[in-house]
């Protein structure tokens, strides 16, 4: 019996769903050979409420989303948060820095009264999450890694070390040595340091490692010329809900 897999989107751009299936034809057919998709808005019209594994995309930002995610949690044997919004709140949490009615007014203008909103939060703030596929967007290979781990019945080996490790493996010149600054030293690896490898720096989209040395990272960012405000802005982009952007 192939496990039934469902994708659900909450508040987010749905890019994670696209990324999950950004596969070679061979991989795609291998994948549907081992699992059954029963609910996946981006790629199919049928829907079923009978599933084993739920992938959740997006953060929780409206009251009405709470009962919905609770119901999914009840049904799913395994619940996986997918992408920065679901895992850590993501960029949606940027609105948490201003009052909610102001956020509504900025986005919806005079129609603001028709909408409700609340401070954005990661899925784990509402229901227990079993596994995470992090990143904005997530790495397809890591999505597959988690799927395969679930299929063979093991805990996926997701790094708890910072991006620096993979950056060195990729033989990159450190972003700090290229006169820019980087959140790599405190951000969870698993992306293969893709941004630094492409000539940018780490924005922290995969969230923090379990025990990040935030004080030291802030000190280093300041040593490399950032003001306290700039340091906090850097952390805010993806890590507002992680208490470090304060």
């Amino acid at each position, binding site marked *: 019996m192939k496990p039934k897999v469902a994708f659900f989107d909450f508040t987010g751009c749905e890019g994670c769903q696209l990324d999950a299936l950004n596969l070679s034809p061979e991989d795609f057919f291998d994948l549907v050979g081992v699992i059954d998709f029963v609910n996946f808005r981006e790629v199919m019209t049928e829907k079923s409420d009978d599933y084993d594994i739920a992938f959740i995309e997006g953060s929780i930002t409206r009251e009405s989303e709470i009962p919905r995610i609770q119901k999914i949690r009840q049904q799913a044997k395994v619940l996986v948060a997918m992408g920065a919004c679901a895992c850590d709140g993501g960029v949606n949490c940027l609105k948490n820095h201003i009052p909610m009615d102001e956020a509504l007014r900025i986005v919806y203008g005079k129609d603001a009264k028709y909408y409700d909103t609340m401070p954005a939060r990661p899925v784990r703030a509402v229901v227990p999450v079993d596994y995470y596929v992090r990143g904005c967007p997530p790495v397809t290979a890591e999505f597959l890694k988690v799927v*395969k781990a679930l299929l063979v019945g093991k805990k996926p080996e997701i790094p708890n070390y910072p991006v620096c*490790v993979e950056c060195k493996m990729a033989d990159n010149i450190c972003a700090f040595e290229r006169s820019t600054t980087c959140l790599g030293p405190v951000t969870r690896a698993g992306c293969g340091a893709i941004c630094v490898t492409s000539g940018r720096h780490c924005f922290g989209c995969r969230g923090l490692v379990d025990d990040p040395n935030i004080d030291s*990272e802030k000190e280093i960012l300041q040593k490399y010329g950032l003001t306290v405000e700039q340091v906090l802005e850097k952390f805010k982009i993806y890590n507002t809900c992680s208490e470090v952007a304060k």
Partner: protein
Amino acid sequence: MAKNVETTAKPAPDVAEAKKLFTITRAGFKSMVDGLAKEMDIVGVKEKQGKFVYGKISSFDELRLDYDVTTMPPTRFLMPARETLLKFSTGNDPRFEPVVDTRPMAIIGVHPYDISAIAMLDKVFTSVNPDPNYIARRKNTILIAVDTLSPSSKSFANAMGTRIVEKGFDLLLTDIGTSYVVTIGSKKGADLLAKYAAPKEAAGNDIAMQKEVRDEALSKYTISLDIPKESLLKLLEENYDNPYWESRSKTCLSCGSCVMVCPTCFCFDVQDDVALNLKEGERFRRWDGCILADFARVATGENFRHDKASRFRHRIFRKGKYIFEKYGMAGCVGCGRCANACLAEIASPLEAFNAIAESARAKEAAARIMKEVRAQAELYVPQPAKLVKITTLGAKEKAFEFKLKSGKPLRHRPGQFVEISVPGIGEAPISVSSSPTRGDTFQLAIRNVGNITNAIHDLKEGAAVGIRGPFGNGFPLEAIAGKDLLFLCAGIGLFPLRSLIQYVLDKRDAYSRVIILSAARTPADMMFTNEQAEWSKRSDVEFLNTVDKADANWKGNVGVITTLIPKVKIDPRKTVAVVVGPPIMYRFAIVELKKRDIPDENIVMSLERRMKCGVGKCGHCQINGVYVCQEGPVFNLAQLRSLREAV
């Protein structure tokens, strides 16, 4: 393809005569590299974004052999970041197929310290439980080394004995400008040389030139070990519990950069990657390292090196001790890559070795002093000292320079004091105001305020006095290492503090910022004005001074010392404030420093008390239960908070 390497087109120079040196021209070297490139993969040093890296090259012209150091070591081609160990099939009849990479490869431009690192890895991977994956790659790799002619500023290969290598390579080239002097390290190397590079036996002046460029390179190393490499084992063994590990690792990011860039690090993790069809897969290893948080975590959740300090210490112990004990070669070759890569600037094993050595010396010196004091049959008998120089400092202040008649240095720590005797007048406790780093004499700066100081002020150069000590704890040298130091000296508080300031400036690299705030009642009361002027001119010292009352010529700050504190930028997490001045000043200084969030432990003061014996007997100096002459005179605020009578 590998067999091409084994064939010899021309008769090879005799390896038995490998001691013999050859020279080749640049064109000869080029034809060797370009020829090899047709036979196998060539890895060489090239430039990338202003730094140097090892990477695949296709022609000689891409090489940059004038490099200082590469960001990553060449060992990544012998032990890749990720490599497949075996392929497997799943199910009821699982199969395991080993995967070994035997493609031939040449690595060009390897510096001697990396040759040493590879020799160490050879030992690790071949001595016990030979590692087939490493051995296969190593056997099919040609190493063409070049001498380091412009060492990296963080390199200490000179101290680790890896600056020059005699073996471990196939060929070693020394760039002498017009041509290369070549040392042959293997038959493979000799064959290669003969086949492509048209070697000539090196002439006498070429060999002289090789020595000259090597000597010139040696002069470019700016840092070194303060102790013989051989004493590292014992030093580390005795300093497992040194507070350094805890204090220095506070800013460690556990980011892994130090171990990833290390040419001698070889630890790895092994994982299975199953294919999507779930029927087959591969088992691979990838780099791992002991500085990473989860390196020693087991499935039950327990982590056997759970804190940064224990991981930091473990890494340094591997570099200086464990590897050596197991394999007979130091685990650090002194390339300096970790020091370059560490954003927190704490990774250099050299720094750790030297800091531990320094604290061990300080401890030893303290023990020796205690022993010597104890060994003194007569506790109260001074040793004779000669007054060698008098310098007038102010209306009532002079600096007296003494030399012990035994010829031995005083061996004091900054902040300690001596009991000075003028027979017939008496004995007085005086802080040493010079640093132990400044030679065999020591200076006592003394204000003429009482009987004994008056008698000392009357002495002439050449006169004899008695000296007991040094006594007291002195300033906490271990606790201030690596910190931002904020010195507050008011009035003749400068006298004891000067010994520490001189000490810190003599070991300037061991500290972060140095900020000196100096105050006196009037410009005429400023002491050691020339020396203070020198401090103010240094670019690595932030200096501010003030007077309570200005005179006509004074153009600087006016106000008490505490008015200077708001003028300086302070990072409370890494600053230690050292405060010495009149008793009244301490309370105000503490208030100002606490406004800047400096923790109590990092506010250090030297207290004045009446001291007669200096050896914890007479009782004059006691504050509550504490003898200032023994447990003091230096205390931090946390200690003083429990001493109600202190300030």
